[in-house]
């Protein structure tokens, strides 16, 4: 089972890496897992590849395991959430939200979607919108 995740972000590598480090953009889960993160230019006009390795981060593997036990979730899916949200924010400026997934890409939500109908105010608040 691979413990790696990757995404391609349309943007200059220096710029993407700089944003990754900013408080506003920093992917919380990956930062906490202290995984090994590398940035490299993608071929052609594709932008920047971000590679996350949960096995070879400083204490990443171990923390990954404990999170797995705590939440019952494969931490890799949380890493992927973070990567997708980062990509969306850098490329579009917003977190894409639907009615079924008002929080944006979220592993827990994939199992328990809301109906795709507009959210009442209390649910919006709960979803952090």
């Amino acid at each position: 089972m691979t413990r790696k995740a990757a995404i391609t972000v349309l943007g200059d590598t220096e710029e993407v890496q700089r944003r990754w480090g900013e408080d506003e953009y920093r992917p919380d889960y990956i930062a906490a897992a202290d995984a090994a993160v590398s940035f490299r230019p993608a071929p052609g006009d594709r932008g920047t590849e971000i590679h996350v390795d949960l096995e070879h981060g400083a204490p990443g593997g171990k923390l990954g395991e404990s999170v797995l036990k705590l939440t019952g979730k494969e931490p890799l899916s949380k890493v992927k959430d973070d990567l997708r949200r980062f990509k969306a924010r850098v490329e579009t400026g917003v977190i894409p939200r639907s009615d079924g997934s008002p929080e944006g890409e979220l592993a827990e939500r994939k199992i328990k979607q809301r109906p795709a109908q507009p959210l009442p105010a209390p649910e919006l608040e709960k979803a952090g919108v």
Partner: protein
Amino acid sequence: MRANVWSGRNSVSVENVPDPTILNDRDAIVKISSTAICGSDLHLYDGYVPTMKRGDVLGHEFMGEVVEKGTGVGNLEVGDRVVVPFPIACGNCWACRHELYSLCENSNPNAGIAEKMFGHPTAGIFGYSHITGGYAGGQAEYARVPFADIGPIKVDEGLSDEQVLFLSDIFPTGYFGADLCDIQGGETIAVFGAGPVGQFAIASAILMGAERVIAIDEYDYRLKMAVNKAGATDVVDFSIDPDIVEQLKEMTAGRGPDAVIDAVGMEASHGHGALHAAERVKQATRSESDRGHALRDAILACRPGGIVSVIGVYGGLLDKFPSGAFMNKGLQLRAGQCHVQKYLKRLYEHIKDGNIDPSFVVTHRMELGKAPDGFETFKHKQDECVKVVLKP
């Protein structure tokens, strides 16, 4: 507000749901003036699309008036009359920059679900299950339109709703199907399915300069519309003779059509994951697994070196793909959900210039509250139904 929601297999109901609100700077709220039932809504209605939830607001063909907008929507003003494309696209990602809007990399917040099903996520779509994002649809009084600075097109008051409504999906989708055929002039194009999308594929192939366009269907009234309204030059009625491939070869003196458009598709399969989906398809009734015939026949009928263009919706796996014919005849297989945003301006000009009046497909007009009747009439092709328009 009132909205038409999915309430289980073969069941929709018009219910009161909360009004949509702006969730992002790039959102707009549209007060809907007209909306339609799409053939692909029937896949949801029939229960063949996984990841539907009771209460999902349906509908991805709609237009109306902008009543509210986020700070990031600079191109629209409150009061603008707009048609909204069915794929939700950010305009910023690599796919959008290459006009592959239905493959937007950011607009589907259920990318993880879509990835399991298709290997990669595809764009968000209004009212079209949770694999395509879980967005509330437009068979309602209002809709939230994400990335409203990219999708919606402003339309003149001089044109009626029914003339421009189908810019949202079926006109561009039919046009896209014809565009994939690389029509240079003089070709023979066969179109499987004379439903609303097939009608526009036929009309578009003619617009592009095809010399013969053959409509294939089993309903005489649809074939008549294809000839009288869309401009088909020939028809194959397979309720009379089911051997479509032989008839197409005979009509083309053995050559086969230069390109074949599949505007039928297959009832999408159930379950998560490709293998599970395949098993469910095999469990399905014989008639449903037969739906793959359109694509198989398209491949068998197409002339060597020709193009098979797939715009009918598929959802899972297909048994008995004619790989021998496909490979040895050197065919090109092209497909996709339409990149509506790419075609909007061009097709809007065609309508304004009077080259086409898309309202010819409308056979039924109903109040939104009658949506359940509309679904039944459309599904069972009662009363010579081709297209149902709903008025909120």
